[in-house]
């Protein structure tokens, strides 16, 4: 499959899709819509194949055929979910959903409690056990973490009216949140640009002779398409104007 023709074809398809999707930045257009709808189908198709060969066949069908008949229970529970689409018997899907929810809630509860609650409270207090051997800088940092976390929690605590000391603490909490969100924005810039770099880097690769100059040719064709549409739209507008005048 990986001969030069399939590579060239792949390069053209890849570059074409990428440029069509980017064309939305100029304005909404049919090329973008085609690529966008293709994405929905391809994404679902990919997921379907991965599940078929990664889960349904090896984890349900094959073991069942080898005598693990109890597996009919999860299969039926799974199939029950699909009754959502048949209003008359949609209640059957509750069997599948309650199984998923019960399992998820039971599993998540103690783990979240241990990792994101107890361990975090412990992590805030524990450093102060070594207060005697702490430098002034370390103490300030650990104090800021503890005080900041309490202030942020105060900000999210709505059961009490925010006035007096609570208001002050909650206001300090906002500043901690602002630093966090500002830093997050800074990192978001890097993250988003990294993804764009990935696409531009790929387009640059596809602009070479190995891919029969896919990128420049498709960009040129897309520009021609927009120019043609622009002229056609103008003409259409001209005809409508004349017709109205007449």
């Amino acid at each position, binding site marked *: 499959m990986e001969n030069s023709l399939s590579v060239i074809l792949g390069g053209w398809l890849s570059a074409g899709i990428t440029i069509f999707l980017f064309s939305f*930045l*100029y304005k909404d257009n049919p090329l973008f819509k085609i690529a966008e709808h293709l994405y929905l189908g391809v*994404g679902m198709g*990919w*997921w379907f194949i*991965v*599940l078929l*060969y*990664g*889960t349904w066949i*090896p*984890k349900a069908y094959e073991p069942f055929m080898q005598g693990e008949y109890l597996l009919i229970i999860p299969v039926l529970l799974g199939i029950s979910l699909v009754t959502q689409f048949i209003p008359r018997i949609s209640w059957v899907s509750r069997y599948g959903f309650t199984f998923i929810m019960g*399992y*998820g809630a039971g*599993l*998540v509860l103690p*783990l*979240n409690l*241990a*990792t*994101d609650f107890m*361990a*975090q409270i*412990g*992590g805030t207090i524990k450093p102060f056990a070594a207060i005697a051997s702490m430098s002034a800088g370390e103490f300030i940092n650990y104090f800021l*973490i503890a005080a900041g976390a309490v202030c942020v929690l105060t900000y999210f605590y709505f059961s009490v009216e925010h006035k007096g000391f609570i208001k002050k603490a909650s206001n300090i909490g906002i500043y901690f949140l602002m630093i*966090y969100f500002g*830093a*997050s924005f800074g*990192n*978001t*810039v*890097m*993250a988003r*640009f*990294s*993804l*764009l*770099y*990935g*696409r*531009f*880097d790929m387009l*640059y690769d596809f602009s070479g002779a190995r891919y029969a100059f896919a990128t420049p040719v498709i960009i040129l064709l897309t520009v021609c398409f927009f120019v043609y549409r622009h002229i056609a739209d103008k003409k259409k507008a001209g005809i409508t104007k004349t017709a109205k005048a007449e």
Partner: protein
Amino acid sequence: MKDRLRRFLNIDRRWLFLLLSVVMIWPIIHPSGIAGRTTQQSVKDFYDFIENLKENDFVILGVDYDPSIKPELQPQAVAALRHLFRRNVRVCILTFISGAPGLIEEIKQTVPQEAGKEYGKDYVVMAYNPNYMAAMTQMSIDFYKAYEKDAEGNTVKGMPVMKGINTYRDMAGVVEITGTGMLDAWVAYVGDKYNVPIIGGTTAISQLGYGPYLQNRQLLGLLGGMRGGSEYETLTGRKDKATSGIDALNLSHMLVIILILTSNIILLVLKEKN
């Protein structure tokens, strides 16, 4: 003057898009070659963790991202796998993200060959599993009930790479590369509960959220986004896609700062004139 400034503030955003395109494409064609000057502590910790693994240790490498965030995370996964292979550690690649198997295949076609590693003996790739909670808890009881067959349909039990491996107790750690909450799941369901060392690689967006885990040593090392990837590549001595990537981001980052400052200065000027 005022009107001009106002008009400039309401400039058609497509000019900004064009400007960004230019400052992104230019360094791809002409890399600046400016080297990063620092290494974050969490990156050093990530590197040291792998560096301190013993020969023939067994490690899970979670590749949990799809093509949408590939440029940020694939370089991290590639560099981590190379590093693990260099340490002669056995690697089991897993995924709980449906879009990842294709990316794992891309890695599998290049990295093991370079390192002279053999499938089934030095590493193995498991099939996609849609439920991470189930798989993670199952591996603590019996690995082979979570993964009976690999991604190619071969029976896993009995493969040389799996020798002596039954549960987390037999593993040296987990390296999780992800842009989802999967790293949190490894920390909660595996790291904290079964005392398994966890290190991770994540997107820049998620990086800050792992601060509390790092401070508590619930997470022993972290690579954050392209910068983390490039610093890690420098430590491993093999610069690759993350290094060229971060180089390409120089100008665009400056552009964002200039845009924020410009618009706010214009607003200030307009306000004063009013």
